[in-house]
């Protein structure tokens, strides 16, 4: 029994030592084979300052008016700077009112930074060669408020003795930054 026991013990001892050696070797090989190297990559990006334009509407109407009638400066157009990162200044200009061969001047349309119940003659619309910087600004968009906006109001004075008809005008609202 003693001989068997001692042989078993020695067998287990050899096996254990073999296991330890093989494990150590495996660890060493593994560390060599799966060694990881770390390197840093520096990424750069230059984010430019931009401003965009977004209008709430592409057409406004002053309804039906008689000659010499005035529409108050309360027709709203909302101008926004969606997803930009620079504040914008609002510039406006327009063209004459045209109905076939008949027309009347661009300056009969007025603009205002605030809504008014009366027709204001202080800010007549100008032509494209002389656009007006309104002084209306759109705040710098932020991550929390990325679509800031502001309003511009329009009014109309219909001159006397103009022929009846359906008159149209083009108004351009621009953001400048």
């Amino acid at each position: 029994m003693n001989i068997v026991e001692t042989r078993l013990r020695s067998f287990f001892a050899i096996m254990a030592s073999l296991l330890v050696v093989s494990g150590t070797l495996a660890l060493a090989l593994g560390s060599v084979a799966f060694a990881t190297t770390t390197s840093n990559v520096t990424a750069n990006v230059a984010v430019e300052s931009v401003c965009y334009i977004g209008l709430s509407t592409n057409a406004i109407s002053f309804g039906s008016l008689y000659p010499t009638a005035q529409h108050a400066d309360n027709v709203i157009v909302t101008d926004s700077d969606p997803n930009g990162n620079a504040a914008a200044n609002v510039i406006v200009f327009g063209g004459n009112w045209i109905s076939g061969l008949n027309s009347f001047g661009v300056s009969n349309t007025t603009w205002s930074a605030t809504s008014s119940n009366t027709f204001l003659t202080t800010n007549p619309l100008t032509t494209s060669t002389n656009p007006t910087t309104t002084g209306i600004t759109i705040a710098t968009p932020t991550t929390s408020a990325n679509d800031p906006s502001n309003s511009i109001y329009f009014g109309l004075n219909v001159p006397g003795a103009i022929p009846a008809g359906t008159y149209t005008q083009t108004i351009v609202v621009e953001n400048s930054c």
Partner: protein
Amino acid sequence: MRFFELIAIATLLAIFSFSVLSTTAHAQLGEVAGEPTFYVNISGTYSYNYTFINQGSTPIPFKVIITNFRTTAKNATEPIVTASPMSGTIPPNSQIKVRTNVYLPAKNNTPGMRWQGVLEVVVNSTSSSTGGAVIDEGVAKIVTIVATAPKPNYIVEILITLAIAIIVVGVAALAYIRKSKKPAKSARQRTESKTKTARRRAATSSKRSSARRKAGTKKRSRASAKGRKKAAPRRKKGSSSRR
């Protein structure tokens, strides 16, 4: 109940898809921020590229408008500002550069004068309105132009220098040609004169020799005559002796 539920879901889906379409299919025009100042030499030009952006998913047809450039200076000549392209389409999610050229005429303009104008990129809208106003959107760039002292015109200077150099070289070449032509004539003349002198000499020498010859014959004839005269008495003597 199921039927109404299905209708409600379909409606919600339609609204959602419409809202998604309306937001994603929206063209959005923008510009790179900054109000530039161009320092332009009087009688000089200046070029600049403006970047305009379409952030949306649909193309933006646009046109460029250049306003008048105004100054407070009296009698000043307005700068000539041109842009290229003046119209076009900005593809979705991309940008376009509009090249702007400024030429500042010299007439009545002095360094330090300032002009201000606006360069506008306006969307060519397809919307229409009957009995109202169409509102078009755009972006604008306020441009300031400052006149600076004119640059010296190197081209003119180079041309003048070249012209002077050509004149100098031409004059030198002419002088050289004249000089080189004169010796050729004199050589001919020299050869001619040489031949003439040779002929003259030959002529004179022949004359002299003929003269000498003549003189020689004369002498000889004289001498023979003398000899005959002298010989005659001898003969007389001889004859007398003979007698």
